[in-house]
């Protein structure tokens, strides 16, 4: 039973609490960096690392942080991890990947997802649960980034992971630029809402028939 509880802390972040499509948090970096799948994955990885580490540290020190100044404390902890990620990425990742992520790596500090999990989960729960929660939400966010960037790269550049898919396809470069990002995310959110509505309607019908 306890095992199942732990597993749930992890999996809830992927579907039930998906940060992008259910909570609609952390939109700014998700739109800015999703011009190609590679960028999306790098961004997702960086944010997931920060999310796991900050959740862990915050839940360890949570009994020492007074309630009134918790937000500044969270921000300093998160900013420290972001600085680490930034330095590591600068050292080991290719130059052009760093250039295309640009200011959005330091901007992980103000990513709402990390703050939201710190405030509503890590500040109230045990370290192990917080790490699993962070890993789950981070994975959920990374998967959503891959989905959006996959669609945008496919339509906007005609490639996936930089590989050309078809010679005859004329890329619609607007999908790579700002307007395309907004429209793709809007339509995807609408699609997931539609799925949810259909499911609840089915459940309602089944319920009526059973009665």
């Amino acid at each position, binding site marked *: 039973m306890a095992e199942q509880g732990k597993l749930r802390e992890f999996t809830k972040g992927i579907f039930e609490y998906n940060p992008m499509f259910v909570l*609609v*948090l952390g*939109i*700014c*970096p998700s*739109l*800015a960096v999703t011009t190609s799948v590679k960028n999306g994955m790098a961004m997702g990885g960086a944010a997931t690392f920060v999310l796991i580490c900050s959740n862990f540290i915050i839940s360890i020190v949570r009994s020492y942080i007074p309630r009134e100044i918790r*937000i*500044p404390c969270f*921000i*300093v902890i998160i*900013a*420290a991890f*972001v*600085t680490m990620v*930034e*330095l590591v990425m600068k050292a080991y990742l290719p130059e052009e990947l760093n250039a295309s992520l*640009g*200011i959005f790596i*330091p*901007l992980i*500090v*103000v*990513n*709402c997802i990390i*703050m939201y999990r710190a405030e509503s989960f890590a500040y109230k729960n045990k370290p192990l649960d917080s790490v699993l929660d962070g890993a789950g939400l981070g994975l959920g966010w990374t998967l959503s980034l891959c989905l959006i960037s996959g669609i945008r790269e496919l339509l906007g550049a005609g490639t996936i992971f930089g590989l050309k898919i078809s010679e005859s396809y004329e890329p619609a470069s*607007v999908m790579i*630029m*700002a*307007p*395309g*990002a*907004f*429209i793709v*995310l*809007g*339509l995807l*959110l*609408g*699609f997931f*809402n*539609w799925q*949810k*509505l259909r499911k609840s309607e089915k459940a309602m019908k089944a319920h009526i028939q059973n009665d």
Partner: protein
Amino acid sequence: MIKELALIIVSVVFVNNFVLSKFLGLCPFLGVSQKTSSALGMGVAVTFVMTIASAITWIVYNYILLPGDANIVAMVFPSIRESGLIEVLKTISYILVIATLVQLVEMMLRKMMPALYESLGIYLPLITTNCAVLGVALLNTTDSPTHLGFLQATVQGFGAGIGFTVAMLLMSGIRERLALVNIPQSLRGVPIAFICTGLMALAFFGFSGMVQ
């Protein structure tokens, strides 16, 4: 001089609008744009914080973080003069400046303009985590292609705030009308707001090329 500053404002309000072409500050943009009055209040508060944050982070960047003779910390710890603190302390120092500033604005507003303070509610402390504020600080200093002067950086912060306010006002006008229209149920709320933002961004594309 004045021409240069005007150019910065035009470029940051229309051509490189923070919300519509740089994707900064989307959370408050979608969260507070339901009503025109609260959108205006939020825009003014953000503009104020952005202007002062640009000024202060410029000072922090030039006199504390950058290596060189002007570094104040280097007077106490001479080893800093060579390396500077830019690599390790940039993010932390900027976010602390912004968090303190927002707290200050909150206290000032509560004393001087209680009505505006009440109407902004929860969104006032949330300016701290508005990525447009940290974004403008970073774009002014570390990520700027040229070294901006104090005045240019401050004006760029002010202009970015105005651009944010313009986008917020336009969006709130659209959303007030959207509330009266028959939209497919699954697109209601945030999805349709995103699609409208996309169309607005497409319209703002028309400004690109206006300023080099």
